[in-house]
């Protein structure tokens, strides 16, 4: 199968000219059907069309022909049995793609990130998250969290600068917090009891946008994976997804310091496809690696870029979650050309160590390269709030209960086994054939065979061609008998012509 796909390597991008055309026998070979596809005697009773279907020629380089070949290849890939084969077939080529990272460092890069992933942002967390019942032991958990804050900021002897960097502090604090909360809450919440918590796995996803390809490379600090997926936040065709606003950025991403690299494209949601646990639940991201709140507040008075911090956090939530959910969708079997028919959801907690930001993402569509696709992906976002204000005299001052409550709700959002069918419907591959090698030798069949498989010409002709040998030399007789010999004939075709020997 892979070899077949390789023979028909697509050249999808408009504007690139290709000076290579496939020889007609190669193309014809790919359209040959197996003997099993013979119409049986019963179905043969129907009226067979006299002429083959009018489709663009496989040998020409016209626009219609290119599109037709693209379609054939996509159908072929869609008919592959397992998602792993599909991913391998789709990602065979090294293609120039724009390398995207979750945290962008340009002004208003969030607009581009939303445009490239086709995401609308709703400034409120969905009801399914705000309605999650909070544990009875909230007070106990609260005291534990306060202890943790004190421990990290106050009590631990962390002398060297490496441990005092804001990023390192954020990572350590987040890991401890995640560990604490999943431990404390896990008995009331069954999905966390069997969950996998992964540190530092990379997420990579590539997708075609209208005129170029994008590749996301990302490394969330903590991922929580569960056996069953999260339920959807809003129906796929709801107002939010169809009428939501997506900012438009029509210029080249080069202007935002996003560069193209010819790199092997990858789709990897943080776990391999053979892993038993395949649904993403929550990501924890530490944002202090690239951004520091103090620096932003310093620039606030100078440049009036005060809201950029929030927007950048939002942008990184968009990119990180889009890549994660879309890669999971690929593992299920959907591709850019085989769109989702149920949404995939996940959550994110972005933190600084002190400020917490929550996001819930719903992936409605994978095919972003079509402009007429009405669906958009949705991010439900809550702005950052501090968990505590300060630490004085060994006490936490200004602890914010709402943030902790939301955090517990996000972690406690239950997963449900999927009611709909897991994966896309299997698509059979029926290319319209110009001829079928195994069908009977009608006039038109012979004509096309001669045109597309000229090496079979001599086999197909109705007359037996007898070639006379011109100079026959009999070694036994030791002399050249001459051209007068008329009774020595060669009935086989020319052995030096390469025949198609494989299976159809």
């Amino acid at each position, binding site marked *: 199968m892979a070899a077949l796909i390789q023979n028909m390597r697509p050249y999808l991008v408009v504007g690139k000219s290709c000076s290579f055309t496939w020889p007609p026998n190669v193309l014809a070979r790919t359209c040959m059907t197996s003997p099993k596809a013979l119409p049986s005697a019963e179905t043969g009773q129907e009226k067979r069309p006299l002429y083959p279907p009018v489709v663009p020629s496989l040998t020409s380089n016209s626009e219609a022909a290119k599109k037709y070949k693209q379609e054939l290849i996509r159908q072929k890939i869609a008919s592959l049995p397992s998602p792993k084969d599909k991913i391998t077939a789709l990602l065979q080529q090294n293609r120039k793609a724009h390398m995207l990272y979750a945290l962008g460092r340009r002004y208003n890069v969030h607009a581009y990130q939303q445009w490239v992933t086709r995401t609308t942002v709703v400034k409120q967390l969905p009801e399914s998250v705000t309605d999650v019942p909070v544990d009875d032991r909230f007070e*106990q958990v609260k005291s*534990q969290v306060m*202890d*943790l804050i*004190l*421990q990290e900021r*106050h*009590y*631990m*002897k*962390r*002398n060297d600068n490496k*441990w005092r960097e804001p990023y390192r502090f954020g990572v*350590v604090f987040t*890991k*401890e917090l995640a*560990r*604490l909360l*999943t*431990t*404390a809450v*896990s*008995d*009331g919440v069954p999905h966390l*009891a*069997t969950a*996998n*918590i*992964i*540190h*530092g*796995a*990379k997420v*990579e996803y590539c997708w075609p946008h209208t005129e170029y390809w994008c590749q996301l490379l990302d490394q969330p600090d903590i991922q929580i994976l569960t056996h069953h997926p999260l339920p959807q936040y809003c129906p796929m065709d709801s107002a939010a997804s169809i009428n939501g606003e997506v900012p438009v950025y029509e210029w080249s991403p080069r202007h935002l310091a996003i560069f193209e690299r010819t790199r092997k494209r*990858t789709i*990897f949601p*943080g*776990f*391999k496809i*053979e*892993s*038993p*646990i395949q649904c993403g639940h929550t990501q924890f991201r530490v944002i202090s690696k690239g951004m520091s709140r103090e620096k932003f507040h310093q620039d606030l008075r100078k440049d009036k870029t005060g809201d950029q911090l929030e927007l950048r956090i939002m942008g990184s939530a968009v990119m990180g979650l889009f890549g994660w959910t879309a890669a999971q969708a690929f593992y299920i079997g959907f591709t850019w050309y085989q769109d989702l028919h149920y949404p995939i959801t996940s959550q994110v907690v972005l933190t600084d160590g002190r400020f917490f930001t929550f996001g819930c993402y719903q992936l409605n569509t994978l095919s972003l390269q079509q402009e007429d696709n009405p669906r958009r992906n949705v991010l439900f976002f809550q702005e950052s709030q501090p968990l505590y204000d300060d630490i004085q005299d*060994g006490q936490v001052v200004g602890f914010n209960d709402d943030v902790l409550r939301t955090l517990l709700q996000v972690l406690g959002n239950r997963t449900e086994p999927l009611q709909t069918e897991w994966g896309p419907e299997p698509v059979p591959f029926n290319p319209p054939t110009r001829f079928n090698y195994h069908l009977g030798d009608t006039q038109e069949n012979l004509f096309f065979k001669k045109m597309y498989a000229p090496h079979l010409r001599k086999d197909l002709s109705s007359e037996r061609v007898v070639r006379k040998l011109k100079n026959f030399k009999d070694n036994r007789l030791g002399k050249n008998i001459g051209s007068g010999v008329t009774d020595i004939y060669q009935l086989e075709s020319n052995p030096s012509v390469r025949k198609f020997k494989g299976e159809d």
Partner: protein
Amino acid sequence: MLTMNVSRPSGLLLKSGFRLALCPRPVATSAVMCKGEERVVRKDIRDNPSNHPYRSDWQSGQYYDPRNFRSEFLKPKRIKYDYEDIECRLGTWFDPENIGWSTWQFKRPFDWNESPLRDEQKEPGPEDKNWHDKPVHIFHPFTKVLEGEKQGLLLTKSKWMQKEGDNGTLPQHITDLGNNITIPDHEERVREAILYAHEHDTQDPMVSRNQSAQYMLSQLLFMCSTVTGQYPELLDRRVVDGMDVTANWHRGEDLIQTKGKIGTMMLSKSPLPPFASPDNIAETADHELESIFPVARIIDLQPANIYTTEDHTGFLDGYSFPHMHTLFLLNIDRAARRRHMTVKMMMFAHANCLARARKLYGDTEMDLPEPITAQGVAMEDGVFHFLVYQLNTTKLREDGGVKNMVWLDCDNRLYNYMYLMDHAANVWPLKKRKRWVKHNKKRLEVGLLEYNPDVLKKFVGMYMNGVASGNQ
């Protein structure tokens, strides 16, 4: 090339009749142009090797940094020839043995002491305020001790209780706890965790050892913590990474310090109960420590003259989880064998207990009224070593008297993971590497997994110790 053609002389013909030759190689400043019949003796820097790190090569003008190229300067270089016999009149630089770029040269070996470019790297000496004439011997987390467990026992003045052959056994009530408490679905979960740790986290064909070890530990801890519903006292535990622990004690005439950041530590609000009764403690007074003569006790410990004799438990006073419960060591960043890992566990458990004892009872050496206990688990690629440590006395200066106690259970193999390697899939070595080592990273399929559930029971027992009694 420098050999110039006589029949086609190159160079500028000056008005005075001289030909100014053009040489692509920079001329040493000591060259002297002369008139007429004089011969030019062109002094080349190759004749006079100096300690100045001037790289006399065809691409001259570049300077070596001797710090980076020490070996180059230590190699003997021979001077090939002197630049004489240069006939200025014809305007040619005749180079009879011009063999191009690779000329051999003898040079005097580079002398660090006389080089002007050498940094003055002086180590701080007696003028430092923390200088002591008597050195302290530091046991840091990367120490690999020669004699293994024997040396550890000597350094901490302990007795290995219940030693049977090479491996010991844990105290009874831990094994009882392990047998009584079961975690739901533990076999499946451990199996999945092991397979996941070896397969799934990265796109590379193999997961690195660090990653799989960390994942394994975090999953085991998470599994054990799922029983929190039944035992709410488990919430009184805190798992911490990177605790900085320091403890000093005298052992004979030597001062020994254990210092450093160790792996993962579990702390609890309440102390662990002691493992041995006071009678057993009194019995240890008769036990003699096994000596490792002729090797000194302090072998492989790093000596240092600048130190402070503070003890530190890793967190400041007033912390709500002051008691150390278990220390988890992983086989990360440096391959460690069983004897290294057990000694490390022992020393750091001892250091924690000692620091706590000093905080409670002061600096004087005494037999403790209440022994202080700690546990340790070391993981080496699926092999578990368990340790239980009980500190009975801080009188560590002399060899006699009550000893501390150690229970060690080594070489518990949790799983045996084997996979078939694809021998044909050796990766071609990159030409950039010095050593062309082939790394075979292609694996064919997930192999056997011989899982031993007893080891998990011991792990659970150690985890649960202090929370539930063995009767439940």
